[in-house]
């Protein structure tokens, strides 16, 4: 994935890259031993001696390049789906409406998950991070059920937006 290499090396991904890299630098600098992982400004104090490197997540394609590719393909797929939803009516093409609903919810979930990874990583927030992550997952399941119910028992998302827009 040369494009991802280009992306990671040259584009200043502003918010996300700056916070991720500076946190890593501070983690390497804060090398002294500690009995707890108290959060201190700049990052948690790691376990181990001055000679132990900081721990990194284990390399995993499903959390790495496959996740990245899936996220981009999903975002790209939303473009024709939204355009199609604009020109058709939701009740005529319920399958399209269902696909749009699922894709939107998945896209939103990945977006929320990225925000949690950036701002509430479990390395820095060992209790709050996992709690909010699992809350998000539960909420996404609930939203999927809600979207299904709405598309089945009611008029569907595209139709609702059309009606509200022209109300």
């Amino acid at each position, binding site marked *: 994935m040369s494009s991802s290499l280009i*992306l990671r090396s040259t*584009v200043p991904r502003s*918010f996300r890259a700056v916070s991720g890299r500076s946190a890593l630098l501070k983690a390497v600098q804060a090398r002294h031993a500690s009995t707890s992982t108290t959060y201190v400004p700049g990052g948690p104090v790691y376990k181990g001696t001055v000679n132990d490197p900081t721990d990194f997540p284990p390399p995993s394609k499903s959390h790495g390049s496959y996740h990245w590719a899936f996220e981009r393909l999903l975002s790209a797929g939303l473009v024709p789906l939204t355009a199609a939803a604009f020109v058709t009516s939701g009740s005529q093409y319920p399958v399209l409406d269902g696909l749009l609903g699922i894709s939107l919810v998945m896209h939103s979930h990945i977006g929320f998950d990225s925000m949690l990874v950036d701002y509430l990583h479990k390395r820095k927030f060992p209790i709050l991070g996992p709690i909010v992550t699992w809350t998000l997952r539960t909420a996404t399941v609930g939203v999927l059920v809600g979207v299904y119910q709405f598309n089945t028992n009611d008029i569907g998302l595209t*139709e609702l937006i059309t*009606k509200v827009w022209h109300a």
Partner: protein
Amino acid sequence: MLATRAVLGPALRKVALSPRLASAATGILNEQRLNRPSSPHFTIYQPQLTWLGSIANRATGGGLSVLLYGFSLAYLVAPGTFDSAHVVEFVSGLPDAAKYAGKVILAAPFAFHSLNGLRHLSWDMGKFLTVKGAYGTGYAVLGATALSTVALVMM
């Protein structure tokens, strides 16, 4: 120099050989770290199209998703209150100014997030990965967002 070494000799030996003193030092160090302030970083970074556009992309996406999640969960919990008939009825009862404002509030983030998303996807394909490219596409997205918002509100 030698005199200092001779005087401090026993203390030096203790520091070198006693692990308890080492952990006490790190304990004090960690406690001091809890009291240290951190230098301003986020509050002093010069506003630029690059990071303002990036955080706006995240904020608009987050806002629209909160709306989607909120409505879907509300419909799941109380389908009688939040079904389409009630929602349409509520919206049509609002004054015209509120309807226009609502349309702008919904259309502008949607347009910006979609167009900026296309900008992100073009970066992922390796295009516009220069400062000029980023700024050029950034201004193009802002202009297109303004036009699209007007078009969507007029619909």
